[in-house]
């Protein structure tokens, strides 16, 4: 086995990591890009999704358990999102830096709650048999390249979620209303838009997707009280790189981050790859300060 399978494997891993980031970041892009809310408790929505998957598998243990867990996690995380939005976020609209701090507090509370309920040690969600194998290239240039089925599954989930979301935003008025509300709440309300309902549904959608992301994460690692923390910082970096909460930007940025980290890791270890990634992002904004997908505007101070 030579260099080629390793490089090809890392390209695949790049896509795979990108698919995780995109799932983790989409919800953030929604709440941040559209509502200007920085939800530091987003990671805990992932965590919640993971625990809900664990609980669902206790009830539906069979091979289809993981599929049953997805709607459960989506709805569960969305419901918690709804509580969060109505009790906290709505008081902080248009104060993004404050939402960051307040939701950090929420994140601490949720982590501790998880610790008290499920224990500090993680719980385990096992991939069903139909996902528990790997495809290996048997001959040729890429001989030895192994592709785990779980990773293909996650890639598929990411594509499905992105597709569904862009369809939802394109085909329904919700996307339009959300953007209107974000750009000028007062005017949006005066134009007849129920801004509260829009806020609530966007935020819930965002946390719901995070819940879904939590299910697929559980296939790769343990579900622990702090599982969300390891994803939330890179997910934010993806959102920054993507630009103004654009969904397309988020997808592209995830891919950039995923591929960059995976390829750099051929040469350096994970720790150094993280540092290089940040340098890369700072370098990137020198050229595209608005992110991958820039929104130009004439508005003063936009």
């Amino acid at each position, binding site marked *: *086995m030579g260099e080629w*399978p*390793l490089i090809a*494997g*890392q390209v695949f*891993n790049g896509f*795979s*990591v990108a698919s995780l980031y995109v799932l983790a970041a989409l919800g953030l892009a929604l709440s941040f890009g559209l509502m200007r809310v920085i939800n530091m408790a987003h990671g805990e929505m992932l965590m919640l999704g993971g625990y809900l998957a664990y609980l669902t598998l206790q009830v539906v243990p069979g091979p289809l358990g993981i599929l049953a867990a997805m709607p459960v996690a989506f709805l569960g995380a969305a419901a918690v999102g709804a509580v969060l939005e109505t009790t906290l976020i709505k008081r902080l609209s248009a104060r993004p830096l404050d939402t960051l701090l307040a939701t950090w507090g929420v994140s601490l509370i949720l982590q501790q709650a998880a610790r008290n309920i499920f*224990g*500090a*040690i*993680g*719980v*385990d969600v*096992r*991939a069903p048999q139909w*996902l*528990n*194998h*790997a495809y*290996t290239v048997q001959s040729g240039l890429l001989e*030895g390249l*192994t592709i*785990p*089925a*779980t*990773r293909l599954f996650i890639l598929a989930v990411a594509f499905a979620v992105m597709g569904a979301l862009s369809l939802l935003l394109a085909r329904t008025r919700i996307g339009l209303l959300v953007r209107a509300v974000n750009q000028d709440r007062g005017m949006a309300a005066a134009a007849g838009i129920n801004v509260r309902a829009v806020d609530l549904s966007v935020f819930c959608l965002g946390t719901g997707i995070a819940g879904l992301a939590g299910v697929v*994460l559980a*296939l*790769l*690692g*343990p579900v*622990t009280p*702090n*599982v969300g*923390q*390891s994803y939330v910082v890179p997910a934010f970096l993806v959102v920054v790189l993507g630009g103004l909460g654009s969904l397309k930007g988020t997808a592209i940025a995830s891919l950039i981050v995923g591929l960059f*980290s*995976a390829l750099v*890791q*051929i040469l350096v*270890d*994970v*720790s150094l*790859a*993280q540092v290089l990634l940040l340098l890369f992002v700072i370098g990137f904004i020198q050229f595209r300060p608005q992110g991958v997908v820039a929104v130009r505007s004439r508005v003063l101070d936009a």
Partner: protein
Amino acid sequence: ADTVKVGVLQSLTGTMAISEVTVKNAEILAIEEINAGGGVLGKKIEPVVEDGASDPAIFAQKATKLVQDGGVVTVFGGWTSASRKAMLPVFQKLKSLLWYSVQFEGNECSPNIMYSGAQPNQQILPALQWAVEKGYKSYFLIGSDYVFPRTANLILKKHIDADKLKVAGEEYVPLGGTDFSAVIAKVQAAKPDIIFSTLNGDSNVSFFKQMAAAGLPSAKLPVMSFSIGEQEAVAMGPSLVEGSYAAWNYFQSLDGAANKKFVAAYQAKFGAGAAVTDPMVHGYVDVYAWKAAVEKTGSFDPEKVRAAAVALDYLDTAMGKVKFAANQSLVQTGYIGQLDPTGQFKIIWQSKGTIDPDPYDPLVFPGKKCPAS
């Protein structure tokens, strides 16, 4: 007064709480047992518990608080080397004594610390010895990115080289890291005979899961872990790690009356299913060793206790016969266990008798010894 205060300083919050709380439990259990038996020198022991919060600076702060303001005569505590390093100057300055119960990387001898956790030559090198005996030729070293793994691997590499075997690769993942895709790709490319893992905590679950998903379960590529104990194994779901190996100086499955008694006492207090691990037993034994030393010298004075502790004879403990060597580390036995489906380790190998602790590896630090105190 008819009580004597001792400090128990472990992380009750933060990332290390999960491990350290169990050590705290074991130490408190020992204190309660001793109190039930009449205490030490006729005094009841009063434990003062402080939270190190998984932060070395807080450990140093709380150690000062205990010794300076809290009036404790000694302190049991610490897990990470970082916390021990931060506390060391405090105990040296305040001329007090710390009992440290976790396996570590060595390279340290302080007259103010009793090191009961394994030195590298008591855990890591026995594991290598076992692997060499089994005929493994090519070793891949994976660790969490902190001091113990990096130093342990430094020692391992020297010994692997000295044995004319091959280091197939060496990789580190940040503490708590969950993405092993690149590491596994490198493992697949390097095709080692065995993996020596110093991964910590949660990362192990991600690692084993992703190994299995990539078609490399333990049955195909064995893994020797230095940080997976019974607690971790149960939590991870034993089936995930079934068949993989671990090296320690204690396993819950050890024979012996002292161990049976200890496990029963612990489970009576913390639940029938509660797992018992190596660092916990070391913490538990530390308290009894302290008691023995105090009684031997007839004083709580740290300096006298230290001198008495290294002069004690073998104690019969849950992990077998142990005693403190002159360098204040523990003379103990090395074991290799293989995980069974219940989360217990089947003991498949043990060192020939006890191993004397050697803080400075002779290959890495030729000629270096602890200053005789």
